[in-house]
């Protein structure tokens, strides 16, 4: 099937290569928005292989990419007005950094693609430009040994490629650093929102039902009034961990994500208390602080996976302490809340 981003063909000694557009169409933009919201994420791929940008020749640079379409789109857009080749590795639709961590964006796959697509016939320079974050999976000296190709590490972000080329194929220190700006954190929130999947329906449903319980039996009215309030509190706990904490990340005290989550969770709980949303019953108030703190802390801790600076050793260290605490808080909070139905 012909993809909309293929706008022509280039003949090479290694066969015909598709020429890609360097301009995003509305279709690209729309599908980017969709994929950010986890829609159709799993099959958002590009066919692995060699592509041409502009009118490249034997001297043109070769840029290595993954087959997650969003990453590929950023690369082709960054190469606007340039001539070059794009070598897409099969990373099973996963972005460069994640795939490099898993090893699919790796030495073996890169060496295979260099040989498979007969790069030595297409270009004479024996050099490939690999995105810096791919270095987690690619070993430059092994590629040199296996294929004779020299790996040059390009910038972290595709948009810095023109600057990298202008600087004589050397990255400036700021092109090598990965940051975690407000915009970048915000882009990751939609994926976090769907973390709990079907629990997002089951848990509120359970609270709605339990909210109807009282000393004399079950009341549908109570279920709606108390249960509705409970569902709002739960939603706020969840959002506190996976939306508010990521947005305010650098502003919240503490290094540990779980502690940051507790801070935002309790701030939200305090706000709810102030607006009389928690309860007037002290048992239920305490129960809500435990529940909201625990849920918010857990969700915030999960954001370590999206962050660009947390180490595995650090995450394990905080989890050993906080995961039992989070489970304890949520269990105790739930029991307290159920108990408070009967007093």
């Amino acid at each position, binding site marked *: 099937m012909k993809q909309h981003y293929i706008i022509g063909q280039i003949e090479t000694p290694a066969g015909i290569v598709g020429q890609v557009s360097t301009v995003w169409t509305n279709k690209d933009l729309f599908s980017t928005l969709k*994929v*950010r919201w*986890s829609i159709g*994420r*799993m099959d*958002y791929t590009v066919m692995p292989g060699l592509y041409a940008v502009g009118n490249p020749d034997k001297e043109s640079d070769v840029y290595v990419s993954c087959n*997650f379409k*969003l990453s590929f789109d950023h690369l082709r857009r960054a190469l606007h007005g340039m001539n070059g080749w794009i070598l897409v590795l099969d990373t*099973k*639709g*996963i*972005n460069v*950094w*994640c795939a*490099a*961590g*898993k090893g699919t964006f790796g030495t073996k796959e890169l060496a295979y693609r260099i040989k498979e697509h007969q790069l030595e016939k297409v270009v004479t320079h024996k050099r490939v430009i690999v995105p*810096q*974050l791919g*270095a*987690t*999976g*690619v*070993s430059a*000296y092994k590629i040199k040994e296996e294929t004779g190709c020299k790996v040059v*590490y390009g910038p*972290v972000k595709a948009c810095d490629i023109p600057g990298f080329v202008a600087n004589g194929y050397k*990255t400036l*220190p700021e092109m*090598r*650093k*990965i*940051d975690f700006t407000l915009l970048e954190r915000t882009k*990751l929130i939609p*994926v976090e929102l769907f*973390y709990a999947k079907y629990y997002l329906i089951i848990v509120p449903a359970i609270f709605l039902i339990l909210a109807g319980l009282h000393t004399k039996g079950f009341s549908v009215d109570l279920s709606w009034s108390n249960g509705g309030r409970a569902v709002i509190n739960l939603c706020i706990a969840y959002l506190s961990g996976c939306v508010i904490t990521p947005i305010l*990340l*650098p*502003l919240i005290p503490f*290094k540990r*994500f779980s502690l940051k989550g507790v801070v935002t969770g309790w701030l939200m709980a305090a706000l709810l208390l102030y607006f009389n949303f928690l309860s007037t019953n002290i048992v239920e108030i305490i129960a809500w602080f435990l529940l909201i703190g625990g849920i918010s802390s857990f969700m915030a*801790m*999960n954001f*370590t*996976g*999206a*962050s*660009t*600076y*947390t*180490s*595995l*050793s*650090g*995450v*394990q*260290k*905080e*989890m050993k302490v906080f*995961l039992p605490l989070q489970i304890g808080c949520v269990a105790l909070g739930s029991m307290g809340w159920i108990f408070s139905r009967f007093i």
Partner: protein
Amino acid sequence: MKGLTYIKNVNTLQLDSEKCNGCAVCSVVCPHAVFIMKEGKSFVQHKDLCMECGACVMNCPTQAVTVKSGVGCAAGVISGWIRGTEPVCDCGPGGCC
């Protein structure tokens, strides 16, 4: 990285300067500018900024750098515990890590 630093004294990064041949590839691939080149050798300047991605280890031709690398992701650690494996990154493309 103003304001965004993680837990101190926890990561497993180690550099054996004896083995270093001064190629500087570690300082090129490190996304957190952990290394500094001094007199033709690499040194760890900001150890606490290391996120254990393992890019330096992968590319060091003399095996002078070591780190226990893996996914710094709580969900991945939990999946690893459940399956009895190392932490695994099994969320979809893009978004995570």
